[in-house]
């Protein structure tokens, strides 16, 4: 009886064809609308930041794993995702070497030092961004108007900046008209301009519409769950309103939607339990809003998510009750038996 060659591993003997690479590819595809639009808005410099960041991330991962004698993991595309995310949350005028530094820091410090794929406690792209903001505050907060050369003449405050510096929401609308980004300065057309993303900001964060397109794609493929983004954006909305800020403006103007969709859904640095995900989203939204309202920065998404990342392992203790859960009998009862 031919007995060679037969596989004898423990069941199951059938496995899904899905793999990590396909998941990462789905995220990259979901990021594409925002990426392409970022290049359209800000031109070649934005493209440069994106390419340099992605390349640096991939190279950093490959070299680190080579140096530490680990198997290369370029094929799973996770470094591409990290590099792309670092670029999309950077300003378009960022010097290329800084973009490279941010991506390398994200991959090496935030990810590989902790064990690589799946083991990073903090979102790598946000760590990369946090390092850049602290090292190069000026470069990381220089914003440019869309559709112009990225020169001093075209710098433009982000909508949140306008408000942080004491401006009103109406001033934002006026600014749009002045720059030719909107045809009217009324409240609704200002919101519409924000929604389609005709504004200054990070390369990938501006168009809420295109972020939602990517989100819908990820939801359809069941790559991400809706709960965290919904909780984060919902909390931002509610708390902005409670703290006397314009909630619609708050949601549409900064990076909260991009962060909620692409950062708060990061597998490794967020809870895996459903209740944990909900609390994570609420916490990230609350911290974001509190920083916007009371903090020194106009935007708080980065720290909102990073702070919640630190709590994620604890949130993982909030497991769903298992099937057929029976509360443990009280010791007194046991003794009586």
């Amino acid at each position, binding site marked *: *009886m*031919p*007995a060679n*060659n*037969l*596989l*004898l*591993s*423990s*069941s*199951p*003997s*059938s*496995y*899904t064809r*899905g*793999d*990590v690479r*396909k*998941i990462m590819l789905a995220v990259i595809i979901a990021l594409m609308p925002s990426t392409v639009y970022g290049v359209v808005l800000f031109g070649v410099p934005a493209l440069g930041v994106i390419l340099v960041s992605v390349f640096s991330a991939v190279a950093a991962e490959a070299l680190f794993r080579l140096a530490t004698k680990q198997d290369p993991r370029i094929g*799973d595309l996770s470094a591409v995702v990290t590099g792309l995310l670092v670029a999309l949350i950077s300003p378009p005028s960022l010097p290329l070497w800084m973009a490279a530094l941010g991506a390398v820091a994200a991959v090496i410090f935030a990810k590989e030092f902790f*064990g*690589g*794929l*799946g*083991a990073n406690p903090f979102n790598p792209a946000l760590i990369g961004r946090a390092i850049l903001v602290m090292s190069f505050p000026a470069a990381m907060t220089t914003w440019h108007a869309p559709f112009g050369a990225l020169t001093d003449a075209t710098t433009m405050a982000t909508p949140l900046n306008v408000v942080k510096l004491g401006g009103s929401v109406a001033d934002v609308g006026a600014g749009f008209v002045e720059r030719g980004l909107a045809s009217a300065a009324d409240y609704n057309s200002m919101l519409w301009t924000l929604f389609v993303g005709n504004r200054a900001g990070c390369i990938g964060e501006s168009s809420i519409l295109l972020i939602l397109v990517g989100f819908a794609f990820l939801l359809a493929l069941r*790559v991400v*769950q809706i709960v965290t983004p919904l909780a984060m954006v919902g909390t931002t909305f509610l708390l902005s309103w409670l703290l006397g800020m314009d909630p619609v403006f708050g949601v549409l103007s900064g990076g909260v939607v991009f962060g909620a969709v692409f950062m708060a859904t990061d*597998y*490794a640095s*967020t809870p*895996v*339990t459903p209740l944990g995900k909900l609390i994570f989203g609420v916490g990230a939204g609350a911290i974001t809003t509190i920083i916007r309202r009371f903090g020194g920065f106009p935007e708080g998404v980065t720290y909102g998510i990073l702070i919640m990342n630190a709590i994620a392992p604890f949130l*993982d203790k909030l*497991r*769903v*009750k*298992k*099937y*057929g*859960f*029976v509360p443990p009998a009280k010791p007194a009862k046991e003794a009586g038996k």
Partner: protein
Amino acid sequence: MSIKTFKGGAHPPERKHRTEGLPIENVRTVKQVVIPVNQHFGAPIQPLVKVGDVVKRGQKIADADGRMTVPVHASISGTVKKIEPRLQPNNLDGMAIIIESDGSSETAFLPPLDGLSCTKDEALARIREAGIVGMGGAGFPAHVKLAPPPNKPIDLVIANAAECEPYLTIDERMMEEAPGDLVLGMAIVMRALGVSKGVIGLEDNKSHLQGQLESAIASRHYGNGITVQLLKTKYPQGGEKMLITAITGREVPSGGLPMDVGCVVHNVGTFKAIADAFQEGKPLIDRGLTVSGAACKTPKNLMVPVGTLVSDLVPDVIQIDEEAVRRVIFGGPMMGPSLPNWTVPVQKNTSGVLFMDEREAKVYEEGPCIRCGRCMRACSCRLSPALLNNALKANDLDLAEQIGVMDCIECGTCSYVCPSHIQLVQRFRVGKQLVRAKKQKEAQRAGK
């Protein structure tokens, strides 16, 4: 009626098309059978025959006293040639009685018994004497399920017709060819338990059988109270707990049995065997199974004597592409064990034999957990497999137990859905053993 289901699960490719429409082929003549003595879940039993004895088809050849025992019968007439350990489908060597056929068709069945008028004790004794075990896979003694303690009232009998494992189609064919036997078997069990309600839980990929089953129920006076419930085609719909939850909404308590929520569940094959044991007095000596897989050139639904070596069916009954075989599975691909060869007997609980080729049997290297949460959503027992895996990797048995490793039904859905192909259920199986060993040690220490 609406289609019901449970939460979680996955939908692996069904691959049932190869054998779906094929009538069950009855294999009457085999030159020998290798009948494992212990084919049930419970206490071991002993051979009643010795080498050289002449036995008849249907004659009891092994038994023992004790509640958790089930006798075994000769499935062909002939001479006992050997009694020795042989490889069983559970990958262990177990004592087996080897009978060489004498070609006669003499039988030694029990006298027929009217299961609808006999006493409860008579019914239970008959089911035990006929050697009936759960035919879905676990081999749990059927009569034990029918004798719940008085403090566990039963109100529902469920026929497990989900057949959620890919490839397998034998239950489907059985229902198509003998729906009346299923109804009779259920009626006998319902009567023995004093239950007035029975449900046939059918996955909706077999919805074409619904009308046929319903008319079989309607045309029999004892079919009263039996209904057909369509279930969503989803693995592991045929898991006993999942089936109960889908149909009744009740959850079997952790560490408990279906009887704790008033249910008795049997596979449709078991009901058919019960019907045979009463109608014909025939013990469980024939087993229907699906032979399939890409490396099987002749996918079939077969009925063979229990103890038939799969290798003896080659090449007259089935043909195998021996070059292409990479994996031989007894049962379905999700839970069935892989065997080192196919000189292995068909047992009472063998629902299929699969010959998988390279593509079907593809194995993957384990990657890092990316915490995507797919296993968490797929686990029908809501056990957080990703976290359980971490606990076991860290050798934290207390945490593993707290998360619920002992509640794992080992369906393998977590391992199936994992994009990193982490050996989740495999690790949980080991984890269960470790927890059991630890508890034993603790009990010993406490006893000292």
